[in-house]
């Protein structure tokens, strides 16, 4: 066991060992996104495709930087990152409440940062660190679960106030996955689910009218085809009319004729499925499945609990993006504003996803690094 952990790979070794095939897979997926953005602009790189490419370029470099950082540094930094994200989230909330409207992002000049997106990764980091310090039987004890519960609830509460149901749900689900992997007992999940179900009628009172409307519309979109149900219905029409092979690149009538709303962001999957049909849609889902499988593979190969949890957490987060978005455009889930990772136009989501992959690669590069309970070096 001493051959692991002590001998740290050099930068050159790290670069050689980096899973380039994963980078390739990511780039391939992102390229599908560029093509779709090109199509969304009616066959033009302006205004979306070019900017998305440059963001991707920045993101890939950032991802590699994150990947090369020693995993133990990430472990030590995890609470700080979490705290910083929480502060940013609170800052957005405060700015919003002092009269700047319902803003969800901070303007950093060159780019608008959406703290709630960063929070998803930060929660994974913080929980991974927390559960790293416990054996499985210890982790499941109630007293050891109180702090992680707050790690999840604090950002959720802030995000819910924005109000952003989708992101709050994602944080809850990512958190749940971390609890599951970290060692929470099955019955504890049962209790939480039961409590959650009991809270639904209470929570309903706190929903905004438009949120209630969205849920109603989701349940029956045909009742309001030109109002709230418009998005879902038009998305289903575009998707369904794509058929098996689609209408061809740049030939998607529904999206190009602007029946499809938000075609460059949340509904980009619909456009892809309209133009490339079931074949194209399933192809993209397969690509995502490969990325998720890769993340799962890395998680299983890690020696440290932190790396395992981090890798799996990042993967689950990625999966949630994909699942919620695709389910949403198919009318399986309500429209909650979750982008399709690597493809939807938008900076924060792209960067968050790429940083997540950076952390995943860091786990891979340092899969054999031993980390003790306290988070120190062996």
């Amino acid at each position, binding site marked *: 066991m001493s051959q692991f952990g002590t001998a740290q790979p050099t930068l050159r070794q790290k670069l050689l060992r980096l899973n380039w095939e994963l980078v390739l897979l990511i780039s391939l997926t992102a390229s599908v996104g560029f093509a779709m953005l090109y199509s969304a602009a009616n066959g033009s790189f302006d205004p979306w495709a070019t900017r998305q490419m440059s963001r991707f370029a920045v993101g890939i470099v950032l991802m590699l930087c994150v990947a090369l950082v020693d995993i133990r540094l990430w472990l030590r930094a995890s609470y700080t990152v979490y705290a910083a994200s929480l502060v940013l989230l609170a800052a957005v909330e405060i700015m919003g409440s002092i009269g700047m409207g319902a803003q969800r992002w901070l303007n950093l000049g060159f780019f608008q940062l959406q703290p709630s997106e960063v929070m998803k990764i930060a929660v994974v980091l913080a929980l991974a660190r927390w559960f790293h310090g416990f054996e*499985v039987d210890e982790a499941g004890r109630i007293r050891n679960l109180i702090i992680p519960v707050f790690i999840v609830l604090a950002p959720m509460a802030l995000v819910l106030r924005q109000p952003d149901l989708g992101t709050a749900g994602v944080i809850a689900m990512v958190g749940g996955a971390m609890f599951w992997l970290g060692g929470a007992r099955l019955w504890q999940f049962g209790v939480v689910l039961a409590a959650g179900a009991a809270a639904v009628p209470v929570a309903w009172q706190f929903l905004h009218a438009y949120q209630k409307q969205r849920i109603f519309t989701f349940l029956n979109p045909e009742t309001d085809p030109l109002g709230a149900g418009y998005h879902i219905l038009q998305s289903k029409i575009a998707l*369904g009319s794509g058929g098996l092979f689609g209408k061809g690149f740049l030939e998607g009538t529904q999206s190009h004729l602007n029946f499809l709303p938000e075609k460059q962001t949340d509904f980009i999957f619909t456009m892809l499925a309209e133009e490339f049909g079931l074949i194209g849609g399933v192809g993209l889902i397969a690509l995502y499945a490969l990325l*998720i499988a890769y993340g799962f593979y890395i*998680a299983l190969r890690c020696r440290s609990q932190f790396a395992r949890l981090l890798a799996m957490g990042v993967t689950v987060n990625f999966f949630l993006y994909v699942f919620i978005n695709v389910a949403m455009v198919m009318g*399986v889930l309500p429209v909650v504003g979750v982008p399709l990772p690597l493809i939807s136009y938008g900076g924060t989501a792209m960067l968050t996803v790429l940083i997540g992959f950076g952390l995943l690669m860091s786990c891979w590069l340092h899969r054999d690094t031993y980390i003790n309970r306290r988070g120190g070096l062996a």
Partner: protein
Amino acid sequence: MNSRDNDRQRFFTRRAALLAGGQFGLLAALVGRMYYLQVVESDRYHTLAEENRINMRLLPPSRGRILDRFGVPIAVNQKNYRVLIKSENTPDVPAVLDRLAMIIDLGPEEKARILKEVRRKKKFVPVTVREFLEWEDVARLEVNAPDLPGVTIDVGERRFYPNSDSAAHILGYVGAPRPEDLTGDPLLELPGFRIGRSGIERAFDRPLRGAAGARQLEVNAVGRVIRELDRQDGKPGRDVVLTLDMALQRAATERLGEEAGAVVVMDAHTGALIVQASTPSFDPNQFTEGLSNAQWRRLADNERAPLRNKAIAGEYAPGSTFKMIVALAALEEGLITPQTSFFCPGHLELGDGKFHCWKRHGHGHVDLNRSLAESCDVYYYEVARKVGIDKIAKMAARFGLGTELGLDVPGERAGLIPTKAWKRAVVGQPWVVGETLVAGIGQGFVLTTPLQLATMTARMVNGGKAVTPYLARDRVERGQLAARADTPVADIGVDSGHLDLMIEAMNLVTQDRTGTAHRARITVPGLTMGGKTGTAQVRRISRREREAGVRKNEELPWRFRDHALFVGYGPIENPRYAIAVVVEHGGGGSSVAAPIARDVMAATLDRDPARLSPGANVAGFDGPGNRGS
């Protein structure tokens, strides 16, 4: 690596595998859902997508023309140049309108209306600035086009009546559909679409309208046209051929001149109307452009009723033109013979009443021929008293009086032929003999239209055939033009010998020196006309007035003057045409109506298709070979 670490790894692997399994399961469910949407339900969504994307735009069909019997167009379509403005191409709409105003003279209200419409409509929907532009204005706009961004000129169609007012009542006019006209046919809801509002335009609206074409346009979610996918040209409306001879129609209108009146010329063998004039008239083109309130009031409030088609909707006492009916009723009943004569002392006394003849000192002994030639009133008082009103009414009905004749343009009036039962039912009083006497000279309750009088005359001179009047060569059947059925015309069931007696007597009216219309006979060699004059009182002449001397028509206000009537036919041998002339408050039948009839009949005989264009297929003309004997 200690055992606790191994435990932890095994635990993690187990739970991670479950988690990953769940994830792949959910992704698989998404694929399933996608399969459902894109393969199973694909057709449904495909249809929905097509509906979303494709917008049908109707192309209004070109309205059919209306032609006269010789093919002369009397209702056509003209190019309608319109200036349109599209705000999306116009940086500053008010400024462009100001510049436009220098070319086509836009008033401030008009500008305000345009600006309001521009604000209300989507920015790519053109707003009409002005319609019916003159060609010079179009040319000037074209020259100034660079200064007028977003201003376009568009060519549409509008109805134009080249013979503007001489056939206005028959042609009718077109107008925008009213809410009650809307049948759900989207064509009717097209802006600028016009439907027939009266006359032929209304009666033949369906065939004239044609079938709309359609453009399939690809539009985006806000309705902007992306491109045209398909275009189906519609079927232009069918031309409607009338039996009217526009040259004669115009001549008749001009001959009526300033008078308010009507002239009807009918082919006595077919019922085809050659002339159907009504004056004063109006310009149907004004209706196409939209009438101003003042223009409308001028037409509607005019005491000479320019909007009424007096030929079919003017109801007048027939006066002496009714006398043939009374005579025929008596002849058919065997109550008189041509030789039966009555003495006319200038009046007839009945109880307290004294019924006057127009000839103050009387006609002396009068037989049938003289009674008609000189139009003795006392003769007809006597005959009417013998026959009785109900028999007179029955005879009148055989000649088409008192009923609508089913003319193929709307607006016909029935007139009135009184009976005892009618008076009891409508007036609520029993019939008195005096009323029979008055009816015997076509006065009192009796009302007829010029169309009925022409029809009556035609039936009298065509050998007793129950011809009915019509204006268009074809009929409308289920919205389509269909040829007139060639069924033989029924007989009115009056002894042809008796009819010949009428013709013989009516010949005398113009041909005999004593005839009331002798001065109005046709003097053109080879052309002849027979007929009967009529003068219908429109007011009651009181005894005191009569004693003081009946005032001359010229001394009375216009609306109290007598109606002048004439019914006739030509030529005398083998009558071909029947004519009826009514001049409202014109004075005497022989002095006013008969000369008009003479001129119109002479022109009609002169323009007989058999002479004018032998062998040609002329609407409503059955050719010389088919002439009734």
